[in-house]
């Protein structure tokens, strides 16, 4: 049980002190197949890429402070928003929760010693690093990095003289990393559960990783093949997508979105799982509607694979396609709405402690809801025609991807931090940083909804003077947000180096990771746990009170 603490003098060396191989120091990390060490490798590298992409985002916003040239020229601006998109999507949002926190906690939450294929797991990280370095290094090559936008739409991506092939190659390699992680997680969930850990006793974070992994495995090969076809077309002149060779650019868009729309769910599902994990812990009560939340993850994965063409409502598709894709788009909104209502209901009659992880989760729910509602405006056909390719779309997906998943990653960092590092950060500073980040975030993105409705197209280096007020507020928001992020990371860094020692279970959670030593030992558990209850059994708080009085 969670409150049976292990005396400190009997503690075994933890995963930070000993590794799975005979190497010491840096090689003990680079060659370790311990899922926890691999999780941390992902964490540090992902955060490094995140910092780079935030830098590009900062420059984009700074450039848009005034009409005309503010700091960079148009070509640099186009390369920056492309790099910003590629790095944020492929190197931060997609691996953020599954590869970092999934790797670290999925086996522990199942009561397992590791993932089922530990060496494949390490290979996934190397592919991630190779892909990431290729993406960033294109910047240094003659010709400069790609200026196509992260969607690489043909024919432009076939004509530009910038280095498109390295960017495509990077996305291709990163795709393999994602597929291998997906295979590893699916198999681990099927084969490595502790005795008594039935599917309906699995934590909802595990359910969400399960749904995500299926999408990773089934959808990612399509983007890999598509990007390979673009490389072949560029290098060998085979006509597939290029109209001048008899190809079809709209075919490219279909293939691109058949992956990239489900990819949005690869990005958001694990964050939804994290939210379902955090709320019960800080409300000290069981989750409301466990099965509805679990099945809605699967429903999202399924419906989410059938709505890709809603990114192409202005492409001139047939009326039948328009009807079907708009109709299905509204269906995929239902499971997300179900989750939001269940989360809010889980706060009802809880015993709530508003610590930083919960605060980030509350921001998630607010911002994800705005992202969802504006998705309805984009899902309806006549309003989509007006809003497509405007800054309204930019605001919408940043509300889902950053206001949702990004904040989910921040919540996860604050939630699992004491377990991962065995130390605690300063709660007051973390709370202040949360407030600054939330305010800055909303100031940054909300004005883009308004300017988008008024006709501000996306990917514009320059703009008409009437849009300047919205751009100014947005840019000031970016400064506040970045300041908040710096405080947040500084506080975590300081906590990691010199924070007070964390107890085994600082928040009072009941999932299995809170029953292991802090930080966990190499194979997680001294003896394999046996599971006898559902994942959020908080009845002891209720019954203790009843017995007491």
């Amino acid at each position, binding site marked *: 049980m969670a409150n049976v603490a292990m005396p400190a003098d009997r503690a075994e060396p933890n995963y930070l002190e000993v590794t799975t191989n005979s190497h010491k120091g840096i090689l003990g990390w680079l060659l370790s197949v311990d899922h926890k060490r691999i999780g941390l490798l992902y964490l540090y590298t992902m955060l490094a890429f995140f910092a780079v992409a935030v830098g590009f985002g900062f420059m984009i916003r700074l450039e848009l402070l005034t009409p005309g040239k503010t700091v960079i020229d*148009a*070509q640099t601006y186009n390369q920056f928003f492309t790099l910003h998109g590629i790095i944020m999507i492929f190197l931060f949002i997609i691996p953020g929760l599954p590869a970092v926190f999934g790797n670290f906690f999925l086996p522990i939450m199942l009561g397992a010693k590791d993932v089922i294929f530990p060496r494949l797991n390490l290979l996934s990280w190397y592919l991630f690093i190779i892909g990431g370095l290729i993406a960033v290094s294109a910047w240094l090559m003659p010709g400069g990095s790609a*200026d196509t936008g992260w969607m690489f*739409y043909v*024919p*432009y991506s076939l004509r*530009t003289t910038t280095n498109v092939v390295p960017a495509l190659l990077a996305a291709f390699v990163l795709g393999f990393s994602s597929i291998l992680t997906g295979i590893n997680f699916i198999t681990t969930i099927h084969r490595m559960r502790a005795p008594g850990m039935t599917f309906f006793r699995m934590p909802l974070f595990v359910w969400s990783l399960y749904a995500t992994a299926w999408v990773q495995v089934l959808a990612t090969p399509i983007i890999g093949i598509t990007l390979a076809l673009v490389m072949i077309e560029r290098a060998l002149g085979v006509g597939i997508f290029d*109209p001048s060779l008899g190809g079809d*650019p*709209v075919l490219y868009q279909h293939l691109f979105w058949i992956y990239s729309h489900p990819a949005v769910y690869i990005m958001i599902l694990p964050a939804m799982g994290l939210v379902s994990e955090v709320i019960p812990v800080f*409300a*000290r*009560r069981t989750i*409301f*509607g466990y099965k*509805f939340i679990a099945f809605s993850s699967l429903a999202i994965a399924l419906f989410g694979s059938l709505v890709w063409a809603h990114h192409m409502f*202005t*492409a*001139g598709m047939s*009326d039948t396609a*328009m009807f079907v894709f708009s109709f299905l788009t509204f269906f995929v909104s*239902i499971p997300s*709405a*179900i989750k939001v209502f*269940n989360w*809010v*209901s889980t*706060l009802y*009659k*809880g*015993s*709530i402690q508003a610590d930083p992880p*919960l605060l980030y989760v*509350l921001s998630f*729910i*607010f911002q994800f*809801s*705005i992202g969802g*509602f*504006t998705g*309805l*405006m984009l*899902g*309806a*056909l*006549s*309003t989509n*025609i*007006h809003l497509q*390719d*405007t800054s309204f779309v930019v605001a919408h997906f940043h509300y889902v991807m950053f206001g949702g998943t990004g904040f989910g990653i921040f919540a996860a960092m604050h939630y699992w931090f004491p377990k991962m590092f065995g130390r605690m950060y300063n709660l007051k500073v973390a709370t202040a940083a949360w407030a600054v980040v939330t305010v800055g975030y909303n100031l940054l993105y909300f004005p883009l909804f308004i300017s988008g409705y008024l*006709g501000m*197209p*996306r*990917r514009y280096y*320059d703009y008409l003077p009437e849009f300047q007020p919205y751009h100014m507020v947005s840019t000031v928001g970016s400064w506040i947000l970045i300041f908040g992020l710096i405080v947040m990371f500084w506080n975590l860094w300081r906590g990691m180096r010199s924070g007070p020692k964390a107890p085994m279970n600082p928040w009072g959670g009941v999932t299995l990771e809170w029953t292991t030593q802090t930080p966990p030992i190499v194979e997680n558990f001294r003896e394999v746990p046996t599971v006898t209850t559902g994942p959020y059994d908080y*009845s002891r*708080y*209720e019954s203790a*009170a009843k017995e007491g009085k």
Partner: protein
Amino acid sequence: MFTSSSSFTNSVDALFTYIVVLSLIVLVGITAAMVYFVVKYRRSKNPVPVNIEGNTTLEVLWTAIPLALFMSMFYFGWTGYKEMRSAPADALPVNVTARMWQWGFEYPNGLKTDTLYVPAGRAVKVLLRSQDVNHAFFIPAFRVKKDVYPNKVNDAWFVSDRVGRYDIACAEYCGLNHSYMYSAVQVMDQSDFDAWFSSASAKAGVPAVLAAAK
């Protein structure tokens, strides 16, 4: 900009407002409930939680009610879109050519311009072609947008009753000067349009007839 300047402006704005109002009601409800619960059931005031596993009636309600509302949004979006697809047979056809990074317009008599002049009250159908990469023809004030491709002809139509000059933007990223790929649609009284059309045609040496040539 929220004035009615094309036949679609009203219906698009009405649906947008409908979704915004419904969304605001639910968003305020969710946020208020969240904040209220976090304050009311804070641990210092409410040390003992109540474990509620769920409620099937509620689950059915908050599945069915959003579904019904979503279907109404879908329906109005679809009917609004059908209008955008139904250009009147007598619409004035104008060939639009997009290239990096400008717009060109060609009337049925061969007259070429770089601003789109149209008579007020007359339906106009634009036939969109690209000479290079993808672009998108976007008139924000009219709520009209359509992608422009090198290998197929897309079309869109509008009718505007309001004399004035409205921006035409490129909405699909097309490279270096994408953000400068602006033109304008000039909506004129029929008599002003006729005067402009005959003098411009004379200057260009083409017959000043607007009969649909195709």
